[in-house]
Every structure is written in structure tokens, then in C-alpha cells.
């Protein structure tokens, strides 16, 4: 955006623009460097090789599944955290947000001790004939584990901003709580929910550490695109760079498409911001 095009006073001192530009360069330069390194004549064959396509397909499928899982688990969590005060709420929030600051490898180890063969739940699951570790399910669990906080944080913020005035009015108009949730609460926070879901998807797509630790790297089963890139880097740098660019492209496409304008569900003039 051209900063001279605005007619209003921005209140930003000029030197801020210089630092902001440096920040933008810091983020963009590595991408440029990577693009410069791409072996263009070989680009299409590299990204359409069987192993690449398998990894990409697996990444998209598992990320979609874990985003769905994040919505199913995260919406109630965000509602409980934003709406009903209860003892231990701050503690619960802290634990829900823990994966944000936890190294993913640690998350993977924790998941292994929960769902692995000798794990807390894994033993009982094993007896029931269900084996989770080192399966595609494990990939989805690992991704959900690291991506869930993104959805909870954006949705809780949206819920708090929206307040509960509309819900109160809906209740006095005779709507039972489930109706209020479906017809008022969710539509009001849909932009926040969408933003959270996009972030969760993007985080799932890039998940590496927890996946490698908890799910391993089996081609077609648990080897997602980031794992494939890491593996290729050892043997075929060109392939790694090409796949990296592919991952960037997919991520940019997803985020770009969802962030065009947050106008989902709510009229732009609406009270919700």
C-alpha cells in the first residue's frame, strides 16, 4: 500500500517506516534467496516426482483433518475460556497455549508417552487393537496438538471482542443456548473462527518436529512435505529447494485466499470488528 495515498493523518514518525522496511526485507530476503536457488528447468519434474506428490497429498489431507479436529475441540475450549469464569480457568488457558511455546519435539515425545505402545492411553488402545504411533492418525494428532492453540487464541479473542450482549438479547427472545450458539455466537465470530482455522491449517502444514518424533517418516503414511524436504536436503538439494517453494506457495495461497477481506458472515458496517 502506498502510504502517500491516504488523506488522513497517520501519526507514524518517518523513521518507523525505515525500520518497518528493514523488517519486511528480513522476512522476504530468505524467500528471494530460495527462489534464486531454484533449478527452474528441473522444477516441474522435481515437484511432480512420485515421492513429492505423495508427500504433498499426505500433507494436505492430514492438515485438513487436523484443522477439522482443531475446530471440533477448539471452539468449545474457546467458548469455555471466553464466556464462563470457573476456578482454574487461567491455568487451563496456560496449558492450552503451552504447545505454542513448547519445542515441537517435546510435544512429540509427550504424545509418544500418551499414545505410544507403552504410553498412558496407548497400552489400553493397544489391547483394543488400536495402534496410533507411527500411523497417519499420529500425524493428525501431532498437527492438532501444535495447531490447536492458534485456533483457541484467535477465537477466544473474537469472542471477547464481540461480548455477550447479543447472546443475552437472543436468550430473552426465547432462544435456547444451542440455538444462540448456532444462530448468534458462531455467525458473529465467524471471521475470527476462519482466521483461527487458517492459522491452524498453516501451522499443521508446516509441522515437523512433533510429527517426526511421534509419527516417524514412512513414505505415504507419515512422511509429510516438511519431512520429505528435510530428507531430500541430505541427498538432493535441488529437490529440497523446489519442494520448499511448493510449500511456501501452498501456504501463501491458503492464507492469501482466506485473508482477502474478513467479510465472512458479518456485514462490514456491523457492530463486530
Amino acid at each position, binding site marked *: 500500500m502506498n502510504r502517500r495515498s491516504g488523506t488522513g493523518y497517520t501519526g507514524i514518525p518517518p523513521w518507523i517506516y525505515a525500520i518497518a522496511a528493514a523488517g519486511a526485507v528480513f522476512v522476504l530476503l530468505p524467500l528471494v534467496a530460495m527462489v534464486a536457488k531454484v533449478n527452474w528447468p528441473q522444477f516441474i519434474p522435481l515437484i511432480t516426482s512420485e515421492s513429492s506428490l505423495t508427500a504433498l497429498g499426505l500433507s494436505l489431507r492430514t492438515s485438513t483433518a487436523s484443522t477439522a479436529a482443531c475446530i471440533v475441540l477448539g471452539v468449545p475450549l474457546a467458548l469455555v475460556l471466553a464466556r464462563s469464569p470457573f476456578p482454574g480457568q487461567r491455568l487451563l488457558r496456560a496449558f492450552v497455549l503451552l504447545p505454542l511455546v513448547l519445542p515441537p519435539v517435546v510435544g512429540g515425545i509427550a504424545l509418544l508417552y500418551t499414545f505410544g505402545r507403552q504410553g498412558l492411553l496407548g497400552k489400553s488402545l493397544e489391547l483394543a487393537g488400536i495402534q496410533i504411533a507411527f500411523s497417519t492418525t499420529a500425524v493428525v494428532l501431532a498437527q492438532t496438538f501444535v495447531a490447536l492453540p492458534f485456533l483457541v487464541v484467535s477465537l477466544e479473542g473474537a469472542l471477547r471482542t464481540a461480548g455477550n450482549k447479543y447472546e443475552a438479547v437472543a*436468550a430473552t*427472545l*426465547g432462544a435456547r*443456548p444451542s440455538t444462540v450458539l448456532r*444462530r448468534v455466537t458462531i455467525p458473529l465470530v465467524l471471521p475470527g473462527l476462519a482466521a483461527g482455522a487458517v492459522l491452524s491449517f498453516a501451522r499443521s502444514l508446516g509441522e515437523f518436529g512433533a510429527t517426526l518424533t511421534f509419527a516417524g517418516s514412512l513414505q505415504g503414511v507419515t512422511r509429510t512435505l516438511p519431512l520429505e524436504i528435510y530428507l531430500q536436503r541430505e541427498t538432493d538439494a535441488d529437490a529440497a529447494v523446489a519442494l520448499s517453494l511448493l510449500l511456501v506457495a501452498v501456504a501463501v495461497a491458503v492464507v492469501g485466499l482466506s485473508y482477502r477481506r474478513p467479510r465472512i458472515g458479518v456485514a462490514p458496517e456491523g457492530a463486530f470488528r
Partner: protein
Amino acid sequence: MTFELDATLAARGFEVSLRLGPAETIAILGPNGAGKSTLLSIISGLLRPDAGKAVLGGRVLFDLAADRHVWSAPHTRGTALLAQEALLFPHLSALDNVAFGPRSAGASSSAARETALHWLAEVDAGDLASRRPGQLSGGQAQRVAVARALAADPELLLLDEPMAALDIHAAPLLRRLLKRVLAGRRAIIITHDILDALMLADRVIVLEDGRISEAGPTREVLERPRSRFAAGLAGLNLVAGTVSDAGVTTAQGMVVAGHQDGTLGRGQEGVAVFAPSAVSVFLTEEHGSPRNSFPVKITDLEPHGDQIRVHAGGLSADITPAASADLGLTPGMTVYFVIKAAAIAIYPA
């Protein structure tokens, strides 16, 4: 088929009892923080009192005591709430907003639409049906909100200062509309405006510090206010104290002589009430016999119609601008407020 409420909420110093007939509208008046919104929140089920009971048309809304815990959820109460802001659901059209209540009650979408169109027409907003709330002016939005509340077919309509957020052109329109739709309905309206009480309510209740300080038919409360707040609304001066042969004696020892009710007993709590127009202002003490003369310090002067209203010592006097100029009145000056005893009504508090 009455509405009865007794509720106490210690944390807010709230303790109120009231009864409401089937087609009666009462206005709740009171200063900020008196507990007016608390009252509506308790009735609508958004706030739980410590103890009390409420019955609406034979249904128990809540019955709370040490050994009883009956509490019905807001959506089962039939008490639609209309607030200062219209709070139309921003993602729904005006029509869908109004249809929300009937839909929630289980009506089919076509029946709910029918009901919504009826109520939109009733509030002269039929042409706004397809608009989004963001495309409505404040007055239009509030009209749609009235339709939405009425479409829910509430047994008791709760209005929390519905005119307060509207501009001076939109408010009279909505007031007329409310007068029309509230006729024959049971409603409680919180207001700051005496006009709302006069036009819309059969009775008024004055709430101060979480308690009812005065209640009665609107006209009676305005003509013979017993609380300082009601007197202020009616534009009257009120001095409270103990009745003696001389008149009303305040806690500070000021004696106000006036025309007394025959039924007044000596030593009883009483109030002396008089209009600001009955007060004359002098720079020196006057010595006429049937007169009250009080030295007071002027706090403020403000235009009031074609008069100047002089606020002093918690009382007010209306004088002409010319008189004000002649006397050279300024805030901080000490003057004498002089009132003929015949212009002061004294009756029980």
C-alpha cells in the same frame, strides 16, 4: 395473571418488591447506579439474586431461599428485553432479526416470516425488511428492535432506556410508537425522561440506592413528589424534615412554613414542596410576615425557557433575565430565597 417480584442482591445493596397487573406499564425512574438495570437483569434471568421470588402469569421465574433453588433459564421466561442499543444481530436482515423470536419458539420459517412482516409493518418498518442492521439509522434500528421484541410475544416487555441513544428527532417518533404498541401490554420501562413516564406508564416507581423510594400513579408522583429525585424530575423544590406547628423543620434546623394537609400530625416526617417560579430572590433579608426567607449561596445560573434558573443551597428559583442582571447574580454570591407560605405545600413524606 399478575407479575410479582421480590428480590434481594446484597452485593449491590438491592432490595425491591413490585407487582404488575396484566396490562399495566410501569416506569422505573432513578439516578444512575440506583439498580434500575439490575432490576431488569434479575427479571430477565441474566443476573441471579441472593434471595427472592418472581411469578409471571402463574409461572415461577425463580424462587430462591436457603432451602429453595428454583431458577428458570432466560429463554423460558417470556420476558423480552429491549436495551438502549438496538443490538440487532448484524449478520441477519431486519426481517430475520424480527423472525428470530418466533423461529426460536419453534415456528416454521414461513410462519415466522409472516409474523415478522406483521410486526415490521406495525412499527412502520415494512420497507426495511431486507436491510442489514448496518444499513439502518439509529431510530430505524430501534424500531426494528421493538418489532423483534414484540414478535417474541413476551408476557412482560422490559425496556431499558430505549430512547436514550436516539437523536432528538428519532426519539419522539419512537415514543409515539411505543405508546401505541404498549397499550394493553405488560411492560417495565426504565427511563430518565419524565415525558416517557407521563406518556407510556400507568405508574412510576422511583428507585434510589437499590430500594424503592417512591411509587404511585405517574400524575400523583409528579404533582406530590415525596423524594428529592421525583421532585427534581417534576421540576419542583423539595425540602424534607419533621412536621411542626411552624411547618417543616429540616435536620439542619431550617424551618419552612407552608400550607399544611389537615391530616398531618406533629413530629411526623414531612416534605415541603414548591415551584421554582414561586421563589423570589433578594440581596438582603426581607421581613414580611407570612414569608420564608433563607440565606443561600448561588452554585449555578442557567437559562431555563425564557427565565434564568438560579441554583442555590440545593433549591432553585426562576427569575427573569432582567431581574438577574439588576441583582448582578454570579455563582458564589449569597442571596435570600423568599417564598410565600401559601405557595408551599406540606404533606407527609
